[in-house]
C-alpha cells in the first residue's frame, strides 16, 4: 500500500516521483492484463510479421484493405457482444439474429419493394426487438442468458429458413444496400476525412486536458495526451494511405469504426455506460446504488440484437445475397472470440469496445494470412482456437492476480 496522499493540491516536489511510479504501474498493468489492448496490439504486430515473412503479399495495400472488409460484419456483431460481456453475460443468438435480420431486410426490399432505407431500418428494428425480448426473459425470470440465447440461436435459425421460403437464396441488387459494403471514397475525400479526424481528436483531447488542469486535478503532465494524439494521428494517416493504395477508404470500414467510437463513447463516458460496468462488476452494489439493474440488462441485450442485425446487413451487402447459411457457421463463435482475445473479460466488468475492432483484426489476420498461404481450414481453426484459449487463459490469470492483490 502506497502512502501517497490523496492528490488535492497541485503537485510540486512529488511530481517526478509520481511519474516514475506511473511508468512502473503502466508496465505492470500491461503485463497483468488491465491494459490488454496494448498487449493485443503487440500480438497483432507479431502475427503480421510472421505472415509477412512467409508471404510478402500479406501487408500489401490490397490485402490489408481486403482484410478490413472481411472483418467489418463480424466486428459490428462483436461491438454488441462487448456490451454483453461487460455485463458478465453471453449472447449465443447473435449469429442467427444477424442472418435473420439480413433476410428480413432483403425480403422486404426485394420481394415487397420497400425502400432500402426502410428495409434496413426494419432489419435493425427486428434485431433490437429480438434482443429486447431475450434480455427481458433473462432478467425478469432469471434464466441464465446462456440458455435464453441458446434457445434463440435455434429459433432464429428456423425463422431465417421460414423468411427465406422456398427460394433458399435471395440476391440483393438494390444499389443502396449493395453500396454499404462496396463504396470506396476517392483519395482526396480520404485525406479530408483523415484531417477532420485528427483535428477533431486533437481539439477534444486538448480541451479535455486543459479542463483537468484548470480544475487542478494533479496531472499537469501533457506527455500521455501528446503520445495518444500522435498515435491516433499516425494510425489514421497510415490507414488512409493504405486504403488509398488500393481502392480508397471503404464506407463499410468507416461505418464499423464509427460504431466502435460511438459505442465506446457511450460505454466509457455516459451514465448508462458506467452502469453497465457497475452491473457487470457487482450487480448487488449497483442495485443498492439505485441503478435499475434489469433495465440496464434489457438495454444491453437490445443493443446486442441491433448490432447483430447491423453486422448481418453488412455481411449480406458484401455477399450480395442472403441464403440459408447466413449468420451460420463459425460467425457467432468468432464474434465472441474476437473481443475476448483482445482483452474484454468473460467475467464481466472489464473491457472496451475497441476490443471488437482489435479482436476482429487478430482473427481476420489469422484467417486471411492462412488463406494466402493456402493452408487448410483444419489448421486455420486449430490456430484460431489456440489463440482464443491463450487469450482466455491470460484473462483468467489476470483475474486471479487481481484477486490476490485485492486481498493484500
Amino acid at each position, binding site marked *: *500500500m*502506497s*502512502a*501517497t*496522499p*490523496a*492528490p*488535492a493540491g497541485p503537485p510540486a516536489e512529488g511530481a517526478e516521483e509520481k511519474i516514475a511510479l506511473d511508468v512502473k504501474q503502466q508496465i505492470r498493468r500491461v503485463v497483468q492484463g488491465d491494459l490488454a489492448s496494448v498487449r493485443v496490439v503487440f500480438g497483432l504486430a507479431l502475427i503480421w510479421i510472421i505472415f509477412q515473412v512467409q508471404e510478402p503479399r500479406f501487408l500489401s495495400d490490397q490485402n490489408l484493405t481486403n482484410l478490413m472488409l472481411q472483418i467489418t460484419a463480424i466486428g459490428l456483431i462483436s461491438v454488441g457482444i462487448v456490451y454483453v460481456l461487460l455485463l458478465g453475460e453471453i449472447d449465443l443468438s447473435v449469429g442467427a439474429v444477424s442472418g435473420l435480420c439480413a433476410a428480413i431486410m432483403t425480403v422486404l426490399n426485394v420481394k415487397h419493394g420497400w425502400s432500402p432505407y426502410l428495409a434496413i431500418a426494419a432489419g435493425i428494428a427486428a434485431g433490437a426487438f429480438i434482443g429486447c425480448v431475450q434480455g427481458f426473459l433473462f432478467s425478469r425470470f432469471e434464466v441464465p442468458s446462456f440458455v435464453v440465447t441458446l434457445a434463440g440461436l435455434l429459433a432464429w435459425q428456423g425463422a431465417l429458413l421460414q423468411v427465406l421460403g422456398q427460394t433458399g437464396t435471395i440476391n440483393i441488387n438494390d444499389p443502396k444496400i449493395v453500396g454499404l459494403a462496396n463504396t470506396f471514397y476517392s483519395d482526396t475525400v480520404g485525406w479530408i476525412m483523415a484531417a477532420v479526424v485528427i483535428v477533431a481528436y486533437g481539439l477534444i483531447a486538448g480541451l479535455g486536458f486543459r*479542463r*483537468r488542469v484548470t*480544475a*487542478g*486535478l494533479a496531472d499537469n503532465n501533457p506527455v500521455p495526451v501528446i503520445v495518444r494524439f500522435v498515435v491516433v494521428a499516425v494510425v489514421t494517416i497510415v490507414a488512409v494511405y493504405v486504403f488509398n493504395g488500393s481502392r480508397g477508404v471503404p464506407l463499410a470500414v468507416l461505418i464499423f469504426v464509427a460504431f466502435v467510437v460511438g459505442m465506446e*463513447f457511450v460505454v466509457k*463516458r*455516459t*451514465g*448508462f455506460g*458506467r*452502469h453497465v*460496468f*457497475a452491473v*457487470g*462488476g*457487482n450487480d*448487488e*452494489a*449497483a442495485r*443498492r*446504488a*439505485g*441503478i435499475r439493474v434489469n433495465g440496464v440488462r434489457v438495454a444491453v441485450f437490445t443493443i446486442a440484437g441491433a448490432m447483430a442485425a447491423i453486422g448481418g446487413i453488412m455481411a449480406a451487402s458484401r455477399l450480395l445475397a442472403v441464403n440459408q447459411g447466413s449468420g451460420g457457421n463459425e460467425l457467432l463463435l468468432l464474434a465472441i472470440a474476437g473481443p475476448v482475445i483482445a482483452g474484454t473479460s468473460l467475467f*464481466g*466488468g*472489464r473491457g472496451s469496445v475497441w476490443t471488437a475492432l482489435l479482436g476482429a483484426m487478430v482473427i481476420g489476420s489469422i484467417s486471411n494470412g492462412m488463406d494466402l498461404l493456402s493452408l487448410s481450414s483444419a489448421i486455420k481453426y486449430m490456430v484460431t482456437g489456440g489463440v482464443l484459449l491463450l487469450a482466455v487463459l491470460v484473462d483468467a490469470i489476470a483475474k486471479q492476480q*487481481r484477486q490476490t*492483490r*485485492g486481498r*493484500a
Partner: protein
Amino acid sequence: MSPDTPLLQLEGISKQFGPVQALDRVDFAVSAGEVVGLVGDNGAGKSTLVKTIAGINSPDAGTIRFEGKEVSIGKPQDAVDLGIATVYQDLALCDNLDVVANLFLGRELVAPGVGTVSRQLDEVAMEHQTGELLSNLAVTIPSLRSEVGTLSGGQRQQVAVARSLLGEPKVVMLDEPTAALGVPQTKQVLELIRRLRERGLGVVVISHNLADVFQVADRIFVLRLGHASGDFRSTEVTEEHVVAAITGLGDGNNKQAAAPKEGTA
C-alpha cells in the same frame, strides 16, 4: 427544537419476525456530533434496529423522530431522504470501478452544456469533489483513479464511508466497520469515525469489538435479546460492565441498574 433534542430518536420500537421478538420496546437516540456504539451478542437485535432506521424493516410499534419531528421510514429511500446513510458490512463497492466511479455510483454528475443526447459524465467535477471529500476526511488512497478492488480493506471501508457522505447525511450508521481489518487499518477507520463526529454528524457504530467501541464511542448502547440492556457513557463504564450487559451475566447486572445514564427511557 432545543439544542438538546437528539438528531434521531426512537421510542418504544418493537419488531416481531414470526414467533421471534427481535426488538421489544427499544428506545434509542443519537445526537449531532455523537458517536454511539451499538453492541450486543449475535441475535440481540442490532441488525434489526439498524434496518429499522435504514428503512429496510418497518417497526411493528413505536415512533421515530428525526430532528424532533415524527417521521415514518417505510423504505430505504425515505431514510436517505431524511439524511440517514448506512454503510453495510459488505460495503457494496464495484471492484472493477475506480474510487471516483464508486463514490458517485448511481448519482453520476453529467457535464453541463453537452446536450441531453450524449449526457457525458462530468469526470472532472466528480474527481474534483472526490479529492476534496477524501482530503477533508484525511483518507489516504494511492490514486483516485485506482480500482477499488486493488485497495486494502481499510481503504475500501473508508471509500464506502466517504460514499455515504456524498448525500450530505446527518446520521451515518456503520455496520461492523472494523471487522476483518488489521491493526493499522482499524486505526485509520476509527480516525475517520472521529472526523465524522467533528463534522457534527451523528454516528452509530455497530461492532463486536469492544476495544474499538471504547476507543471511539461517546456512548455505548447494549441490546440483549431484543431489549435495551444498557446505555452507558463510555468514559464512565468499564469493559466488564458492558460485557455483563451484553451477556446478562455476572455482577455487572447489579451495578447496571445504577449505571444507565442519559437514557431516553
